[in-house]
């Protein structure tokens, strides 16, 4: 970690504002809910229960606020549209992060609310302010039973959403999270039991909302929390409509590294480089949508995604299109072996096999998206530093291709240079990406525009070391990646890299025509594990000066 909790939460201005607003609002709602209950003359009978009823009502109001917040960050299409307009205000790409913060807060306030209600119903039974058993309130009235039901749903949803479970079994997370539907039904009917009332019996009616608001004096929070729910419902309907538009899987390419490239033609699908999409293949699974980064550039006549066969769904897909695990693993092995004894310039690693479609037809696909990613604004900075780690390199396929197309058209806007970093453990497993890099590298006219830096972090054994030593010396291409750029070994020293870049910009070496007096923005776009991201973010912050602004953006997928 390195930095203290206080520094992270309060000494970063944006984070501090968020914390004050988000948690301040919760406390304010709590205080208001408490006060409104305590001072309500009509509810004096209920107020005989004293602090427990005040706490439960306060916490209940906070929970309504949080449940309203819960769905807002999941309105992906809305976020995609408003993202460019609000990027300065809050990081719209951190929507899942916000969703989680709201969830954590909700767990805490649920504890407060439920604890207080346990005391309430206990005292209702003891003092008989209402002639009923505590268990009646708990399990036979709407408020109690929906509350217990929501708690159970929360246990299931929270436990399966833990990153460990989510990564090992996305399906479990995906299906369980749809319990949210029942959760919200329970939430909106939670007050229908009319626990908060000034009449002795609950004032039910036969018409919507089935209780009489004259006597049932709850906060009527469902009138507010239902709107995000309706918005989310329409979001899902819209996604479904869009997904049903004409889509055709035109080609499947199998790369020796094991990645399947699906080339999909969908004329109605408009996207920009660096975005991602959801894909569904009804024949493999009827309901599952899987997120993938788009690897084609918007200029390409198709949308492509690269899928590595790593899980149930991806294996099943491989089987279905005739590129089953056995085929791929054989190819991968050949590629890994070939990586070291390959001596032709454009070796076999770049070759791919197109799946023969004459034997059996390709499956139907549906795609949904695109959804935003910060790399959209790569053309607004002078220097773009693209850092991909491992599989995190995929969004940059699209971006590099896109830059290449734009370069050909001469429409690079303010972008002057691109530094591309690829940190990976074993380069041969990303054969398809090397092919792309080769193309992009070969197309470079200005040797300074794009610089590719590849770092291999795996342990190099003796054979490989000799191989490198012998093949590398004097060769035009790097023996491992077949690029002109030399592969570097070990982990990159980010502080050093950024400090050197800063220096070079300051003396005017790095960007001809731009010297110290002009403001320069160096945008870093990172995709990979959080630890690495933090290190790079630190380096960015430390090297920012008055005239050189190092910005940092993280991709999520």
């Amino acid at each position: 970690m390195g930095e203290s909790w206080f520094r992270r939460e309060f000494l970063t201005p944006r984070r501090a504002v968020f914390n004050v607003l988000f948690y301040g609002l919760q406390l304010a709602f709590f205080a208001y809910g408490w006060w409104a209950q305590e001072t309500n003359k009509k509810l004096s009978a209920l107020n005989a229960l004293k602090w427990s009823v005040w706490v439960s009502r306060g916490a209940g109001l906070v929970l309504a606020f949080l449940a309203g917040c819960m769905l807002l960050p999941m309105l992906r299409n809305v976020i995609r549209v408003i993202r460019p307009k609000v990027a300065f205000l809050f990081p719209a790409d951190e929507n899942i992060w916000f969703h989680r913060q709201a969830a954590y807060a909700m767990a805490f306030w649920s504890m407060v609310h439920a604890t207080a209600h346990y005391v309430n119903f206990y005292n209702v039974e003891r003092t008989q302010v209402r002639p009923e058993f505590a268990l009646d309130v708990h399990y036979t009235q709407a408020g109690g039973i929906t509350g217990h039901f929501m708690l159970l749903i929360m246990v299931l949803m929270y436990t399966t959403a833990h990153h460990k479970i989510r990564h090992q079994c996305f399906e479990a997370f995906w299906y369980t999270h749809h319990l949210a539907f029942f959760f919200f039904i329970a939430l909106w009917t939670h007050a229908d039991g009319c626990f908060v009332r000034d009449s002795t019996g609950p004032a039910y009616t036969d018409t919507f909302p089935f209780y009489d608001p004259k006597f049932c004096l709850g906060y009527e929070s469902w009138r507010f929390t239902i709107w995000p729910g309706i918005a989310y419902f329409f979001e899902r309907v819209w996604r479904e409509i869009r997904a049903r538009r004409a889509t055709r899987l035109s080609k499947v390419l199998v790369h020796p590294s094991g990645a399947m490239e699906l080339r999909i033609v969908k004329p109605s699908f408009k996207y920009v480089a660096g975005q991602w999409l959801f894909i569904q293949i009804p024949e493999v699974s009827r309901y599952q949508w899987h997120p993938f980064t788009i690897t084609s550039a918007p200029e390409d006549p198709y949308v492509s995604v690269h899928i590595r066969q790593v899980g149930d769904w991806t294996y099943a897909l491989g089987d279905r299109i005739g590129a089953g695990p056995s085929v791929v693993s054989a190819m991968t092995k050949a590629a890994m072996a070939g990586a070291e004894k390959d001596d032709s310039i454009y070796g076999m690693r770049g070759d791919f096999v197109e799946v023969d479609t004459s034997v059996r037809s390709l499956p139907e696909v549906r795609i949904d998206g695109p959804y935003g990613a910060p790399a959209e604004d790569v053309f607004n900075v002078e220097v773009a530093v693209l850092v991909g780690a491992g599989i995190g390199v995929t969004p940059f396929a699209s971006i590099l291709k896109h830059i290449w197309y734009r370069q050909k058209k001469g429409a690079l806007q303010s972008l002057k240079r691109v530094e591309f970093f690829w940190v990976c453990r074993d380069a041969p497993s990303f054969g398809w990406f090397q092919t792309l890099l080769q193309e992009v590298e070969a197309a470079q006219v200005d040797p300074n525009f794009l610089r590719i830096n590849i770092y291999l972090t795996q342990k190099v054994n003796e054979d490989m070391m000799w191989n490198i030593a012998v093949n590398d010396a004097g060769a035009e291409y790097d023996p491992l990646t077949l690029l002109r750029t030399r592969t570097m070994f070990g982990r990159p020293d980010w502080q050093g890299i950024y400090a050197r870049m800063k220096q070079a910009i300051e003396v005017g070496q790095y960007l001809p025509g731009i010297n110290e007096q002009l403001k320069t923005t160096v945008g870093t776009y990172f995709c990979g594990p959080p630890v690495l991201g933090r290190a790079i973010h630190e380096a960015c912050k430390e090297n920012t000066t008055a005239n050189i602004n190092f910005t940092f953006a993280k991709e999520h997928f």
Partner: protein
Amino acid sequence: MGNLIWHEWARYVAITASVYTIWAAFEGIYFRKFFWDFIGGILRAPGGLQPSPNVSFFVTIIVKAPIIQILSMLTGATLVAIEYPAPFLKGTSIHRSFVARIVLLILHAFIAVLFYQGTNGALYALIAAMAYTRAIMLGETMEEAKNNRGRGGQA
């Protein structure tokens, strides 16, 4: 993507269940009530619920003295110690045993279901016990922590 490793999921449910119960039992010490006292009990105003004399044993160990609450706190704490795991249990056979957990979880559920605040904790403990049972049926084993990095594929 990949297969759900049941015992890893069960662990989170078990931790939730035991922490919930510890908190509930703490509250239960202040607001003592036998959950099942409505059976044969009568309501009197004022005076509240009068439990049936048949359950006086439970009333003694829950209302007169909060024995059940303290016991469920203890089982809850034991479960947290096994699941988290506490340093002295790490790598021991108890830590790796699913059967021990199932037994403890069911015992925990049985104790927790007796007092007023503990029923949800008992329910979650039973869910965790079922998930561990499923893990045994699938032949899952607890691996050493360093191999246990949440990678997909085989458990």
